[in-house]
């Protein structure tokens, strides 16, 4: 690898212009405006402003990092310049919009968001002259700040970033924090911390100090504490593990009560995706089979549940939820098995494309006139009843949360057992090298069939619960986006890692459900997130041990090859 220690003027220009371009782009697609509605610190900072401020900060940081061997002076100069250059394109944008407006050219017919509102956001509502001066000043200052961040010792830099991330995170979720506090402590709760859907400045500062402090302490003492834990006896360790698992269990059980109905609904949806991701993880994470058509299993589960339980005109049998649940799972597993047969000999990219096709076929089948008499075509299946347990009807978000939680635990148990079993080792060998696995006496055909079939089970389970949760199903609920979502969860969380799946689902499914503006730009954010992940943290947010090693040895091989 080529580590340039000196930064050419040309790269500096590139860094700055890229940062400026990021602002212009997010502005023109309306993101800055939309996100400006979301306050982080009341009266001080909005999410929109962060989107303006982050690029010059990162540009300054990058510029400083790449010139760190040219001395402190050059570092600071370059960082400031990067910030300054980053301001060029946004300034041109503002002037251009205004000029065209004066000339009477209607550019909004092409760029809907090139509006007065965008100018206002970029000039901080101070008018063109002073506003632009402020913008240039701020961005240069942020470039310098980015450079300063680079110059700080690693530990302090990480501490500052951690504290800031927490403040932004909590600020973003203010509305829901308020709901939770109200739910727990009554209507007045949260007033001292939050205001108008954002953090108040003082509490924000306290959150910053506390989280940064804890992080800093952990940096200093973490290794010690870990070492002491490692040295402690088996008994202590077991108690510790049991206590933490117990606490986690209690927390999960109490969650609906803590967060209230609306957030329980969000959690139930996150849970459905965790369930699917656990299933897909068997194929992709454990067996290394890239399946882009996971929605197939979800659809089969949902349609079987719908067709066999519906009390409407399309209902075939009006059976009970609990009887149909295993049937749905079996149906999905059968589909998984049958669809695996034709792709057994395919590998990698070809497998991905074939499975992608299956996902589309199932949606088109659901839409088709041919099957419409049985599954309703575009009209879907209605009147799907809710499940009962004795006299209890599962119909609220809270009760569905428990049902889905139980399903997740069953799948989790199965996943862990599989991963540590002979079958798991078989998949690991196959993932690493299919030919070599065969030479070890592993029946790769059987291993693949098993992976696809078991992986489908979880999708079918999720689909069945989904159908009865919604009470109605339509073909458009089973689009390619579901497969993409589930796969992204696994990649972002960390391939093959089970805690990673939960973190990934919370980030990719929970966040967009909580923050509408995120879901408007969902695909853009996914794309950006996946690219950033691949660059910064290819092993995922919470990687499994084996996968981390795999990627590290890849990097080592690449380095050795240079």
């Amino acid at each position, binding site marked *: 690898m080529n580590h340039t220690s000196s930064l050419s003027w040309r790269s500096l220009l590139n860094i700055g212009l890229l940062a400026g371009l990021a602002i212009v782009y997010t502005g023109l697609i309306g993101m800055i405006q939309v996100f400006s509605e979301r306050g982080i610190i009341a009266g001080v900072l909005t999410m929109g402003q962060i989107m303006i401020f982050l690029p010059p900060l990162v540009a300054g940081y990058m510029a400083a990092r790449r010139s760190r061997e040219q001395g402190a002076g050059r570092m600071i100069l370059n960082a400031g310049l990067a910030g300054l250059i980053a301001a060029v394109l946004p300034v041109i944008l503002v002037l251009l919009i205004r000029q065209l407006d004066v000339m009477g050219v209607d550019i909004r017919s092409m760029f809907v968001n090139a509006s007065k509102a965008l100018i206002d956001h970029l000039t901080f509502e101070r008018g063109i002259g002073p506003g632009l001066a402020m913008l240039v000043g701020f961005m240069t200052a942020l470039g310098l700040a980015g450079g300063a961040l680079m110059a700080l010792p690693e530990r302090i830099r990480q501490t500052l970033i951690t504290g800031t991330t927490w403040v932004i995170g909590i600020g973003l979720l203010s509305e829901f924090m308020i709901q939770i506090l109200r739910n727990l402590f009554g209507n007045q709760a949260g007033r001292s911390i939050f205001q108008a859907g954002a953090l108040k400045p003082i509490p924000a500062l306290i959150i910053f100090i506390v989280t940064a402090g804890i992080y800093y302490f952990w940096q200093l003492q973490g290794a010690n504490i870990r070492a002491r834990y490692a040295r402690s006896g088996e008994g202590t360790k077991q108690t510790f593990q049991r206590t933490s698992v117990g606490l986690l269990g209690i927390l999960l059980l109490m969650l609906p009560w803590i967060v209230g109905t609306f957030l329980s609904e969000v959690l139930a949806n996150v849970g459905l995706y965790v369930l699917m991701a656990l299933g897909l993880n068997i194929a992709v994470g454990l067996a290394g089979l890239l399946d882009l058509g996971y929605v197939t299993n979800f659809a089969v589960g949902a349609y079987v549940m719908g067709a066999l339980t519906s009390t409407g005109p399309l209902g075939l049998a009006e059976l009970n939820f609990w009887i149909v649940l295993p049937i749905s799972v079996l149906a999905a597993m059968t589909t998984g098995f049958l669809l695996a047969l034709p792709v057994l000999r395919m590998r990698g990219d070809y497998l991905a494309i074939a499975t992608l096709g299956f996902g589309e076929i199932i949606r088109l089948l659901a839409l088709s006139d041919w099957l419409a008499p049985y599954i309703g075509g575009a009209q879907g299946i209605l009147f799907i009843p809710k499940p009962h347990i004795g006299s209890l009807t599962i119909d609220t978000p809270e009760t569905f949360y428990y049902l889905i939680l139980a399903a997740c635990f069953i799948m989790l148990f199965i996943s862990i057992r599989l991963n540590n079993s002979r079958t798991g*080792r*078989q998949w*690991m*060998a196959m993932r*690493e*090298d299919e*030919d*070599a*696995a*065969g*030479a*070890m*006496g*592993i*029946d*790769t055909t059987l291993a693949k069939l098993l992976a696809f079939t078991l992986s489908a089970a979880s999708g079918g389970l999720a689909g069945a619960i989904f159908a009865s949760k919604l009470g109605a199903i339509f073909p458009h609920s089973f689009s390619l986006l579901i497969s993409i979502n589930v796969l992204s969860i696994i990649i972002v969380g960390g391939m093959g890692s089970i805690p990673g799946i939960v973190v990934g689902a919370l980030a990719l499914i929970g966040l967009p459900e909580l923050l509408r503006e995120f879901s408007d730009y969902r695909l853009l954010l996914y794309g950006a997130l996946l690219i950033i992940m691949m660059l910064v943290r290819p092993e995922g947010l919470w990687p499994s041990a*084996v996968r981390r*090693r*795999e990627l590290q*040895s*890849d990097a*080592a*091989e690449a380095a050795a090859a240079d």
Partner: protein
Amino acid sequence: MALLEVDNIHAYYGKIHALKGVSLTVEKGEVVSLIGGNGAGKTTTLRCISGLIKPTDGSVTFDDDVVADYAAHELVPMGIAMVPEGRGIFSKLTVQENMEMGAFYRNDKEGIKQDMEHGYHIFPRLAERRTQIAGTMSGGEQQMLAMARALMSKPRLLLLDEPSMGLAPVLVELIFDTIRDINQQGVTVLLVEQNAHMALQIANRGYVLQTGEIILSDNAASLRKDPMVQKAYLGID
């Protein structure tokens, strides 16, 4: 009846006629070398024996079983292990994990443990590297690992495809010494090599393969003296 009997096999890749009636036998306890130049069909012959491809004509019999009746992975428990060209180790697993994979079909924990220690005894270099990621080892070490791993399946017949490829002369010597040791512990070996000099030194018998046909077969000592072999494969004029 010999342990391995290859009887007049033909194999095609599309229109390429890679094997044109190859016959050879390997008796129990022997080391037999199959030598030949690039593209002669040596690897193809081994692939037919280990069940990876099925000959279009002729038959391979291993211990009275017709190989074509079984899938490749079923032949491993029956006693055929192959160290392929390019070694085929799991480059992202550790040495230890690779060894464990080698014993995949076995269930006898105690036996596996013993054989593992025995493997490390034969290849002390691997013992020092149990926790190293296999892909980060040198070519020679990887070759050793591939052989040690193959032994973990308790083979009766070990197929080696050019174990000396890309190795320094000292290492080649070490590898061939080890092959001889392994053979003396009761494993029958079919060795494919371009390095005829070394291959004929440790072998009992040898075959010479040229463009898909066996053109010569004899005991190793005689082959070494054969003028054609000396000229074409030993570099002696």
